[in-house]
């Protein structure tokens, strides 16, 4: 008779407990926030690390997402004689949904995992203890810059994703299929609102960046200080980030429409 209880425990109670712990961790980290010159430098250093680490994968994936998205929509739309609207569909689906969501998931896989592993290993090699013993708060010194770096880096990556995906779309529609470039860009311009569509995507990016960084530092921080524990923590970062991003994306989209 323990099976159903065990099942509900694993499926419901444990994730809720974990969420509570992650929330408390975040509150503690925020309560210790301090801003200074030293801190600003560290935040920028982290933005550089997580941003540049993710750049190559964002550029490559962006281009191919734009390419394949245009391929599929161009094919369908021309059947209904609406081939000219391909740029509208491309831009709106990219700016509003695809770019922020895919960027966040790729960011989790590339930068999130390395943040988790870094903090987990710092814990395993007593570096966090050493900071504590030097009267330097590891939450302030290690966690806070990484948390804020995600908020700054992901919107920038979303913008880059958008640009390269559009290039992929232009490459397919204009250069391969011979669409008129003036119609392509003109239709896009008239149907896309800079603030709502493009800006909304960047805002989503900031939220996702925060979400992924939070999960990454939390799982690193709470990892068991063994190689097995760190490996598990990095996996948890990717899986939980992907689920959380898709879930929050639905909520955000519902409010933004």
């Amino acid at each position, binding site marked *: 008779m323990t099976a159903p209880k065990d099942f509900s425990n694993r499926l419901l109670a444990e994730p809720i407990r974990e969420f509570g712990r992650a929330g408390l961790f975040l509150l503690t980290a925020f309560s210790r926030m301090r801003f200074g010159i030293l801190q600003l430098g560290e935040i920028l250093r982290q933005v550089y690390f997580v941003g540049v680490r993710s750049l190559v994968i964002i550029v490559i994936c962006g281009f191919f997402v734009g390419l394949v998205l245009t391929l599929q929509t161009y094919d369908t739309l021309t059947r209904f004689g609406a081939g000219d609207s391909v740029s509208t569909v491309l831009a709106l689906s990219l700016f509003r949904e695809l770019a922020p969501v895919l960027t966040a998931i790729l960011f989790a896989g590339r930068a999130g995992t390395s943040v988790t592993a870094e903090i987990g290993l710092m814990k395993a090699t*007593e*570096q966090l203890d*050493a900071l504590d013993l030097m009267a330097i708060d590891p939450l302030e010194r290690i966690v806070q810059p990484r948390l804020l770096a995600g908020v700054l880096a992901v919107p920038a990556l979303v913008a880059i994703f958008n640009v390269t995906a559009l290039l992929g779309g232009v490459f397919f529609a204009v250069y391969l299929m011979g669409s008129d470039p003036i119609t392509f860009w003109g239709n896009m311009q008239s149907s896309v609102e800079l603030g709502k569509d493009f800006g909304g995507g960047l805002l989503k990016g900031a939220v996702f960046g925060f979400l992924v960084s939070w999960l990454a530092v939390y799982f690193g921080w709470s990892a068991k200080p063994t190689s097995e524990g760190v490996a598990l923590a990095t996996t948890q970062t990717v899986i939980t980030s992907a689920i959380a991003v898709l879930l929050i994306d639905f909520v955000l989209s519902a409010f933004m429409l």
Partner: protein
Amino acid sequence: MPDIPAAEAAIRLQGVTLKRGPRTVLRELSLEIPAGKVTAVMGPSGCGKTTVLKLITGQLRPDLGEVWVGDTRVDQLRGAELSGLRRNIGVLLQNGALFTDLTCFDNVALPLREHTRLPEALIRRLVLLKLQTVGLRGAAAMYPRELSGGMNRRVAMARAMALDPAVILYDEPFAGLDPISLGASVRLIREINRALGLTSVVITHDVAEVPKFADYCCIIADGGIAAAGTPAELRASHLEVVRQFVEGLPDGPVPFHFPARPLAEDLLALDA
């Protein structure tokens, strides 16, 4: 420690009891560590040596008893007060625990940059002097991964004394060192203590090395102080647990076998 007036004790643990779950790690342990001397804390693995160190730094709080460093009661400190205490205590963790993304220079400079407003030129001089003391000024620009384990620990020593603390705690500073590095570490601990006039506590189980650097030593076993005194006194001791530890006997008051039910019972259980 025998016959030390309270005023001269830099660190005092009084009747400290500490439980971890069902296990009592320390049982009414009282210990006085004299100021300005090097004290070795010895004992078999898992006897609570590192726990004593964590009590002194305030990382752990005792369930009962008091922990004093100088005139400060550590077990009641919180937040900023605890930070203040820690600035005055240098700690060398088991593997050095250097920050792998910083050079040796930046590792030693970190506490200075974080806790003082000294100009960068002065910090540079201080750091180079600390590194000179441990013989690694030439490695200032290198990263910890480029140095051997023994060198890493020497850089960590320089970092531990960066803020000129009154107390330095060493957690197993000799574990896994080759004879040359070991000799260097032993001499450094002695020299740093003499030159800076500080109080050193060395946690170790390296019995052979203790007389070379320690003024006093104590043996922790079974959650309490089994014996304490100068190294010579301990060597002359007839206490069974001291004999076992000093002579490295595999069985004795500290048993060879982990507690278990009788062997015959375990073997017969397989047949059943």
